[in-house]
């Protein structure tokens, strides 16, 4: 079975990637300035309490030992506890010492899983928007290179790529939420809260998709099996929809695997602007608060998603073009 061999190989490779990411993140977080133990117990805590906490958390062990301990926990699905976030969900100020909720920190994995569905929803909707915008423009441009449709696709792409997401987010929130009152834009209380941020993300992704589609459709249309198809008696509709788009979608799929990074970067900014309680907002807050276990957990989790989606992308590409089965 090709699928089995492929999956085994790719998942093994994925674990290696994950291990390296974990190692890099872990080490980098240990060498930046700042004492986690003091962070946990509060800036004003007496030194002996800080020392005790450090001992408790194993922060005095050499970094490799700490890393192995962490890996051991990770394998069991334990990403550790947040330094700062209590289970109740409230964020505490970091400098007070005697905070009663401090002893009861939230699990990193729980925090992530709680936010993940919202971010997946945001990403999914934005991909749908993106395809809705990019497909007609890209395909039309690719079918008639040099025509006004091609120029329209190019123009739209240039326009989208030069609009920064934070700017567009603010402008849209102003126009659509404040002035027109059509859609909500701050926080999350239902699906309608996803639409505006997803649209901003879609605009950010669209230029790449438009460009790739235009180029690959134009290229496929030059191929002999397309130029010869009308002579064989195929209708223009089938030529474009059954053959050209099918062949052009392979570079597009690969692009998606790569553009995932852009999408995630966009998620950080857009969630922050719209105060959308997803993984991005969680990341920004945990970075600002130096919540090391949480940053670590999110980074590893996201690289896991990366690996997973790229496996799916390659599988899908192989399903479309069996020549890729190597």
């Amino acid at each position: 079975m090709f699928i089995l061999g492929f999956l085994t190989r790719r998942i093994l490779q994925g674990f290696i990637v994950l291990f390296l990411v974990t190692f890099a993140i872990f080490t980098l977080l240990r060498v930046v300035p700042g004492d986690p133990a003091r962070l946990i117990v509060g800036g004003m805590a007496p030194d002996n309490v800080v020392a005790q906490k450090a001992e408790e958390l194993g922060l005095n062990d050499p970094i490799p030992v700490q890393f192995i301990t962490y890996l051991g926990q990770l394998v069991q699905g334990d990403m550790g506890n947040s330094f700062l976030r209590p289970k109740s969900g409230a964020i505490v100020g970091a400098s007070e010492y005697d905070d009663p909720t401090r002893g009861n920190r939230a699990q990193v994995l729980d925090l992530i899983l709680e936010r993940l569905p919202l971010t997946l929803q945001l990403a999914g909707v934005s991909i749908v928007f993106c395809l809705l915008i990019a497909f007609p423009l890209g395909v039309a441009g690719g079918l008639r290179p040099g025509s006004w449709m091609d120029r329209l696709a190019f123009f739209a792409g240039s326009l989208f790529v030069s609009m920064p997401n934070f700017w567009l987010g603010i402008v849209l929130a102003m126009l659509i939420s404040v002035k027109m009152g059509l859609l909500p834009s701050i926080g999350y209380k239902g699906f309608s809260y996803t639409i505006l941020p997803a649209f901003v993300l879609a605009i950010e992704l669209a230029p790449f998709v438009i460009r790739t589609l235009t180029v690959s459709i134009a290229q496929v249309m030059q191929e002999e099996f397309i130029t010869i198809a009308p002579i064989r008696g195929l209708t223009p509709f089938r030529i474009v929809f059954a053959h050209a788009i099918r062949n052009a979608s392979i570079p597009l799929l690969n692009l998606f695997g790569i553009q995932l990074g852009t999408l995630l970067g966009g998620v950080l900014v857009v969630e922050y602007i719209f105060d959308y309680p997803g993984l991005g907002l969680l990341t920004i807050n945990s970075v600002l608060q130096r919540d090391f276990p949480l940053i670590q957990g999110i980074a590893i989790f996201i690289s896991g998603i990366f690996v997973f989606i790229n496996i799916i992308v390659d599988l899908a590409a192989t399903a479309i073009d069996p020549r890729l089965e190597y």
Partner: protein
Amino acid sequence: MTDKKLLRVDGLSVDVVKGTMVTPVLSDISFSLNTGHVLGVIGEAGSGKTVLSRALVNGLGPPLEISSGQVIYKGRNILDLSQRELRLIRGKEIGYIGANPMGSLDPTMAIGEQIVEKLRSVRPDMSAVAAKERVLDVLASVHIPSPEARFHEFPFQFSGGMMQRVMIVDALVTDPTFLVADNITQALDVTVAAQIIRLIEELRLKFNTAIVFVSSSLPVVSSLADEILVLHEGKIVEHSTPHELINQPRHDYTKSLLARLPRIWGDDVKQLAENNGDVVLSVRDVAKTYVVRKRGTFNDHNYVQAVRGVSFDIHEGENFGIVGESGCGKSTLTRLLAWLETPDAGTIRFQGFDLAELTKAELVTMRSSFQLLLQDPYNALPSRMPVGRIIAESLYIHDGGSKEEIRRKVLSAMEEVGLPKDLENSLTVGLSAGQRQRVCIARALVLEPKLLILDETLSALDQVEQAQLLELFALLQEKYRFTYVFISHDMAMVRKVCNRIAVMYLGKIVELAGNSILFENPQHPYSKALLSAVPTLDDHPFQAEEYLLDGEPPSPVDIPQGCTFMTRCPARMKICGSREPDLNITVGRAQSACFRATEMGDEVPHQLK
């Protein structure tokens, strides 16, 4: 009168339009065609024959424009039809087969699915089940083995010859009354091309289809056509029957075309003697097997036995030919001879030194004495380097002396291969294929090699350039006593230049003989099959009806037991299934790996019968 004709072309002219520049490609083409007849169109590269065949199906796109003329099919001008009217006849009544079968279908879909798609596009009334049945029927009728399984395979899983059959099915599945075949044998091996020609002949008798058969090979066209058009620079220069065309050519161009055809058989063919110089290259029991992961498995491997124990000697100053169909292992053998890859078993000795025993430094020095020239002169040269620098490159590697000395050597090599001096500082962009090949030759020449290995070096060139380079090779050989190894599938070229020829089949040499023995009295049935497929106007001693084989060689993964040729051999015996024959000595110094060879050995040569 006109109604009786299925197709009539009147004063057809086509131009290339680029901005305001208008260059005529075809001018004033007129002919007509009856049901069941075959019209051959012959022309060189650039004569406009592909444009003509596309114009006949109204399949031209920018920058090509039809400036005047009509293509009347069944009383209607095809060129005037709307796209919708065109769709009712094109693909249905009019079939078209192109020169590039591998690129003619969507690479991401199974071939059967695509033919069904086509069939149902032109005949929407047909059910999917009926269409599939029809496709399977036609697949079987063009001798594609196990059509049910192949129906679900993708284009890349087919060989060129099989794919061309698929395209023939694609055209015939709708029972067309008129078929345009545009150079359909060009990309194929001779034996496969001969099979395809035979197939077209068969189909024409069976379905009474009118065919326009376009080709660059006069022998191929004349074997098939009822009438022939000779196309030269976009004009018809001659129109007659094959017999008349060959025996009484009227136009000068036709005469020169006939004169340039390589002669293969006949009393006036120049006989090349074998020569017995010192042994330059000695190959003993060389074998190479590639391990390839099996498709659809995780850790299972196929062993592709590309070369399976090959031995021969090449003498100084001789031209040694290696021929065979694609997949017979000749390219792998080339790579072994050039020591780009090392053999798994056996030895290759060059001027007495075992190449496997040399140190890296010694090998680099030794390499300057044997040089490889490849088929594709476009990919063989870096595009951002001036010609002079490209040629000097090998001297830098092999320490060719001071700067001035290198420049002097480069310039003299350029002069020798016939490149003008002022090309020294220009890039390769504007050079023709022939000039590029000359750059490659100069690059090898500056090292003063002893042996040149030519892997299909002349295949990509047209007849005129090919002849000029062969002259150059002969000149260099006279001057420096070069030894050449020609690896080729072009039997006519091999006949013209090689002293001795090895015929390869499935990784082994099945026959090794001098030029005249191989061409006039070959012993191995495969050599005969190969020769029978060579298109020629000469009196053919090996008639295709008798010697041409069906099918394709077995895969080098599953090599048959006993004699590997047995699966296709018309004269197999009991012993062939159990033992693989060696290269036995038969006539004179010819060797043949066939059990029948010895018993037929003293037969008189074919020509003398």
